[in-house]
């Protein structure tokens, strides 16, 4: 059994199938990644540098946007990934401060005009 799983070729994160200790190397998709901090089972580890504002990709689709630069081998979770969906908090703060809502990840296709 692999220590971590990548689902799609396009993914920039892997899912830990067992707890990963700092300093361990994992090999996924013929690529070796040095684990930079402990990753709990079921949590995600970055396979490459993901820049702030870039999409975090799992299952071949965006699961959110990096809220800061994410280094390879580090933990990818709520502390460094922002959801682009259902963000009433952003809408409320944008309305309060009258600033534009920050750009999120890809949006669903607008529904066709009827």
């Amino acid at each position: 059994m692999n220590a971590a799983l990548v689902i799609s070729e396009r993914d920039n994160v892997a899912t830990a199938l067992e707890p990963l200790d700092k300093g361990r190397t994992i090999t996924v998709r013929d690529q070796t990644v040095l684990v930079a901090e402990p990753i709990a089972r079921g949590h995600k580890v970055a396979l490459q540098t993901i820049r702030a504002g870039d999409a975090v990709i799992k299952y071949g689709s965006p699961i959110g946007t990096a809220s800061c630069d994410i280094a390879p081998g580090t933990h990818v979770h709520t502390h460094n990934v922002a959801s682009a969906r259902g963000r009433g908090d952003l809408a409320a703060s944008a309305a309060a401060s009258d600033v534009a809502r920050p750009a999120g990840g890809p949006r669903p296709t607008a529904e066709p005009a009827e």
Partner: protein
Amino acid sequence: MTSPSAFLGYARPDGRVGVRNHVLVVPTVICSAVVADRIAASIAPIGASLPHLAGCGQLGPDLTVTHETLAAYCQHPNVGAVIVVALGCEQVVAQQLSDAARRAGKPAAIIAIQSEGGTLRATARGIEIARQMAETLSSVERVWCRASSLILSVKCGGSDYTSGLASNPVVGRVADRLVDMGGAVVLGEIAEIMGAEHLLADRAASHEAATRLLRVVNRVEAEAIALGLDIRGTQPSPGNMRGGLTTIEEKSLGATHKAGERTRLEDVVAYSAPITSKGLTVMDTPGLDVESVTGMVGGGAQICVFTTGLGTPTGNPIAPVVKVTGNTRTAQGMADNIDVDVSGVMSETESLGAAADRLLTEVLAVCSGRPTAAERLGHREFAIHRRNPTI
């Protein structure tokens, strides 16, 4: 006909096929729920009541949904006979519910607590009728039925990282096979399609179905945004996040696997509305497990396959709910709640296809009468979705 594409079910007068044969005891209103529960308990396990919090103090759409959901259960193919327990002064009309049952060819009776003369007399009268109905139903035999007569509800709850990687893909392959055999699959929980709607829309059988899906997902997202809060407080849930799920998009992408890999989206229907298409239907239900399963069974699903990474006991009063987990610790730690353990997919000791074969066999066995863990434990959760305040 004993191939794995068939099961032993109940052929109903309206042409539908049931997998259970319950005497359904329906309170029209919360005020008659205790009497209904006692009547149903007198003929357990064939008796099933639908305790709910509604039936009065509701206006407009909520009253309509309550009425339509209760009527849908009265007509449901898993029900052989119906007793409606009214109080006497409520909004939900007992006669309309018993008429719905009779239109589906089921015997139906009404008991009203006020006109019977109180709790004791109404309960005693109800038990007498219930025993007669149960005796009549006990002589009805199961017959071989085709899997194409099934509407399979797919659901996930208490999700963790194994849900998207193992249990949901296994259920998806069962959904694909059932649709190949001519059956139907229903997926609810619109909030858990958010972030994966493009995948379902790409598989839509018609432009109209794709448009309706995107419209309903956009509406749910707009409702969440209108609250001025981050949906992450509830989607993903705190437990989901501890399990490694970061965003609703990630949860949705894993969750929609259970609707199949190649099923085509045929229709999008309202809460508890009849599911009339073969192939995949999306129902407009909330993400709350019990409200979601209640609606999909109301739409006509005879059985639910429910994946859970963290473990959850949810059942339904009239439809068997089959629990599937890909988490080996949950399979062992909550063994009494789990029907099918597919954790071998995570450890690569079982292929997705082999696990799907095993699950499909179990689904058909449950349709033929094998009790699920939720049925054995008496889990019969029921909750009608409501949108507006009680007046």
